[in-house]
């Protein structure tokens, strides 16, 4: 078939390219902060707070959440073409637009995570908060720790899943148009959160706990990814074509194939490493070698999450219905 098209917009021809690494980075960082928020709630609530006792990360992780989120928001804000109009997002509620939910959700997530941070701030360090209003809040909110933990947990799940819902709602982009995508994104976000927690926790039992959590999450991802590709392969022709960049050995699709290959290598290795970490007999505290191995497997998980976001954002824009 010989096709000549006159009047094409570069933005959508030969394929869509409206979203780039900035969006991918936001998806990753947003997911990371969401997963981390969930993990902090788990940390504080588990065993009635016993897990968090004396754990440095019980304070730092909660503070990391809004920081990581802010960095991610910077990137997504940079992607907007008319940044001065951003306030319109908060004058509108569009119940059918996942992006609208997201913008409002992010608006709620911030105060929830900050209030949660204040609520879980240890009593003996409260004076470090300096501002009297913050100290006052910290005192008052500590009574509502459980409720705020639930809110924080809920917001984390929401932020972790809504980006997947957003992408999956585009019928025009068959690669994303899968019901499995939101679940995959959420799992990846939780896994990243757990991995990050592992890295910043200082107590062995906390690290090992989240290692166990992470193993389950990575195993879930390792089931979901092939299922996702299978689901696309057995769906319509456009869906089948949409996953071809990942499975085509060619110059044009080099990065997609390599990315998938890396994932196929990273996740099993990470799982095995983590499994070994659990099985091993550790001393009172972890040796630097063991710490390095733990950090390595955590970093691998984070890289895996980044690869997923980058390749899906770019490959999704290659896919089209017609």
């Amino acid at each position, binding site marked *: *078939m*010989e*096709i*000549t*098209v*006159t*009047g*094409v*917009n*570069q*933005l*959508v*021809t030969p394929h*869509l390219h*409206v*979203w780039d690494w900035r969006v991918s980075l936001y998806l990753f960082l947003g997911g990371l902060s969401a997963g981390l928020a969930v993990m902090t709630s788990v940390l504080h609530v588990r065993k009635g707070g016993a897990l968090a006792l004396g754990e440095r990360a019980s304070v730092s992780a909660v503070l990391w959440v809004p920081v990581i989120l802010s960095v991610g928001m910077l990137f997504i804000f940079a*992607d*907007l*073409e*008319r*940044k001065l*109009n*951003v306030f*319109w*997002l908060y*004058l*509108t509620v*569009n119940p*059918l*637009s*996942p*992006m*609208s939910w*997201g*913008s409002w959700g992010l608006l709620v997530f911030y105060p929830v995570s900050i209030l949660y941070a204040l609520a879980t701030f240890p009593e003996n360090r409260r004076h470090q908060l300096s501002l009297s209003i913050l100290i006052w809040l910290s005192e008052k909110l500590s009574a509502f720790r459980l409720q705020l933990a639930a809110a924080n947990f809920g917001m984390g799940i929401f932020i972790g899943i809504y980006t997947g819902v*957003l992408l999956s*709602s*585009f*019928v*025009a*982009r068959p690669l994303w148009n899968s019901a499995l995508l939101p679940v995959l994104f959420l799992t990846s976000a939780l896994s990243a959160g757990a991995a990050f927690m592992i890295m910043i926790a200082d107590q062995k039992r906390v690290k090992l706990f989240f290692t166990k959590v992470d193993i389950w999450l990575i195993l879930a991802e390792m089931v979901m990814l092939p299922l996702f590709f299978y689901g696309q392969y057995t769906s*319509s022709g456009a869906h089948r074509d949409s996953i071809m960049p990942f499975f085509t050995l060619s110059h044009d699709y080099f990065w997609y194939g390599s990315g998938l290959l890396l994932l196929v290598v990273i996740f099993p290795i990470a799982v095995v490493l983590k499994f070994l970490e659990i099985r091993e007999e550790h001393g009172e505290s972890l040796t630097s070698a063991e710490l390095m191995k733990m950090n390595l497997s955590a970093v691998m998980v984070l890289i895996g999450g980044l690869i997923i976001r980058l390749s899906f954002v770019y490959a999704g*824009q290659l896919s*089209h*219905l*017609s």
Partner: protein
Amino acid sequence: MPKYAMVIDQRRCVACMACVVACKKENEVPPGQFRTRVLEMVEGEFPMLRMELRSELCNHCDNPPCVYNCPTGASYKSEDGPVLLKQNRCVGCKACVAACPYDARYINEDKGYADKCTFCAHRIKEGKQPACVATCIGKSRIFGDLEDPNSAVSMALRSNHHEVLLASAGTNPRVFYIKKFSKPE
């Protein structure tokens, strides 16, 4: 309330691009950007060849993914049919550009907001036809009110077999195509 729609009779199109230029002039579309395009497709092996000419534009869908994905309500479906954009509300997130299965939208390079065909809503208000329809040399583009049984679009749809693009996407487009792919008898 009128229900505006467009019918494109591909048999009449000669791929002259008059619509492409007229639209750009009428709507001050920046250089390098377009609200409508023309495809010239040829299949077969010499000398058994078949040609299809088709112009494409925003379909002003009844179930528009660009509208329900817009976080600021900038994209909206007007009562009489055209899908329009309140430019001052657009934040440039490009969700609508990504959501459109017809690649109908673009980001206006000069201004930053999302943009696309408006069925020349400003001309419809004055009782005129959209610019592309007015200038179409082949009279291939037909525009009118589906609610009026005697309008050009209603008559064209009644007397010809017609299709829409990407029907499986569930967008319920308002642009209909009368096409003949192989050589007419």
